[in-house]
């Protein structure tokens, strides 16, 4: 009843209070990033992009190019018009696309990550953010974990950074111990750790298929394979036992694979638990406390009942968070991507789960009793 009342009120006010967990801001020009890079890196920084496995049709919504010029996602006023205001988004979690972890030179990759963080903090998280609708992700270069941990330290206590992020492209699975300085820093400062697709099979990173697929459609479909491998690694290496405060956001890595993968891993664990004795409970039992998935690109079976069953099986009520991926080509519309959901499930996926995960106050409240970015019990 309380939920229904709240729904009516939000509809009446025209504000749905959506939290969009995957939104991409872009600099209008590479010089915006370059100005934050010290020499010798400033001259080394080329364009903003990855230059491999490009979408053969288009990479961003054609209607997302700002009328003011510049690339999609580069004009905050237009993004507000097309996403924030159009759909009543209360918070947009920003994930810049740096592609820094494909670089063979770890120092260059780290410098690029830092430059994007400075840029994001000076623009989208401050100048463009008088109402606090934009929440940011700290990019780190995971090929140099100690340097990444230092970069996280640099932003500790920032009012609008809510998580640390990396692309899923990697040389070893994310549960392995060389990454622990990053997780330790995330846990200490209350940042979630987000994984987003992007540099799989590029630069120094492995491709999570047997070799390189031929087509973009293969590469893009199989992005979820890296996420599955990273999740199994995080669970079996005992990362969440070692860092009980750590939370991992799996962004744009697919949704429907989760339940059957967990069934498989749980079954394996019953027989092979002795190999990983630090895993003290069913691997799937770590998810609610430590893992969230963002929804886009949501799998869309012809029979929507199939999807509703998948959502039930994967515990979407507690671990799924809506994302649109604006302004990218596979944007999921907040009003059309999902089938009709029960009201309480809708509210959890589109708002509550993410607000709790990132410690964001409900829209319309002043949030005074709650720290800006942190759930008190995660301190």
């Amino acid at each position, binding site marked *: 009843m309380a939920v229904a009342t709240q729904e009516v009120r939000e509809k009446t006010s025209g504000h749905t209070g959506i939290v969009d967990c995957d939104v991409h801001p872009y600099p209008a020009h590479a010089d915006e990033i370059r100005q934050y890079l010290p020499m010798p890196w400033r001259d080394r920084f080329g364009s903003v992009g990855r230059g491999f496995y490009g979408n053969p*049709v*288009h990479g961003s*919504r*054609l*209607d997302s190019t700002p009328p003011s010029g510049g690339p999609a996602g580069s004009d905050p006023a237009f993004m507000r018009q097309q996403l924030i205001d159009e759909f009543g988004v209360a918070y947009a979690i920003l994930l810049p696309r740096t592609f820094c972890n494909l670089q063979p030179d770890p120092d260059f990759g780290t410098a690029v990550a830092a430059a994007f963080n400075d840029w994001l903090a000076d623009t989208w998280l401050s100048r463009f953010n008088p109402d606090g609708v934009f929440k940011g992700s700290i990019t780190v270069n995971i090929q140099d974990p100690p340097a990444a941990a230092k970069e996280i330290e640099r932003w500790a206590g920032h009012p609008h950074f809510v998580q640390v992020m990396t692309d899923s492209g990697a040389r070893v699975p994310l549960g392995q111990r060389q990454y622990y300085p990053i997780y330790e820093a995330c846990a200490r400062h209350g940042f979630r750790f987000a994984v987003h697709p992007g540099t799989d099979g590029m630069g120094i990173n492995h491709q999570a298929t047997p070799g390189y697929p031929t087509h973009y459609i293969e590469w893009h479909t199989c992005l979820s394979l890296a996420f599955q491998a990273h999740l199994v690694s995080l669970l079996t290496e005992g990362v969440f036992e070692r860092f009980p405060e750590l939370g991992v956001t799996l962004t744009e890595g697919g949704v429907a694979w989760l339940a059957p993968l967990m069934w498989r891993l749980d079954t394996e664990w019953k027989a092979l638990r002795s190999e990983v004795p630090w895993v003290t409970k069913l691997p799937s039992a770590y998810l609610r406390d430590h893992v969230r998935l963002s929804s886009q690109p949501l799998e869309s079976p012809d029979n929507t009942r199939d999807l509703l069953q998948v959502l039930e099986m994967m515990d979407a009520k507690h671990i799924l968070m809506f994302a649109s991926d604006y302004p990218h*080509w596979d*944007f999921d*519309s907040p*009003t059309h991507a999902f089938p009709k959901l029960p009201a309480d499930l809708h509210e959890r996926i589109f708002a509550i789960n993410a607000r709790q995960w990132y410690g964001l106050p409900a829209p319309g409240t002043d949030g005074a009793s709650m720290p800006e970015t942190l759930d008190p019990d995660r301190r």
Partner: protein
Amino acid sequence: MGRHVVGRVSEVPPGGRRIVDAAGRSIGVFNVKGTFYALRNSCPHQAAPLCLGAIKGMTLPSRPGEYHWGREGEILRCPWHGWEFDITTGRSIFNPHKTRVKAYEVTVESDQAQDEEPDESVETFDVTVEDGFIILHT
């Protein structure tokens, strides 16, 4: 049945399009090689403004490893997810029987809408069908 004057034929040349509001809807009118077609400006997938998409050809069905490009100028790709639609029918390429966008009839007529009074103060000339009016029927 509504009748809406879209404009002069010369204003929408082959390969061109004009998006109009008619009967409370946004509708795209396309000139494909001299013939006009109209589609509702809303993708059946996620309601994107379909008619803002790129006008292209398509890779025709072929054997593995072969590419045959055809139907240049007849295919509309949704500006969001890139789904392909046949401008001449409104049917999608991947599932023409089920996934389709509403198509409207378009005619080219030498006179503007019959119910409009001619403006006597303006000197008028006969128009040929080549530069007649594009009429959208909703």
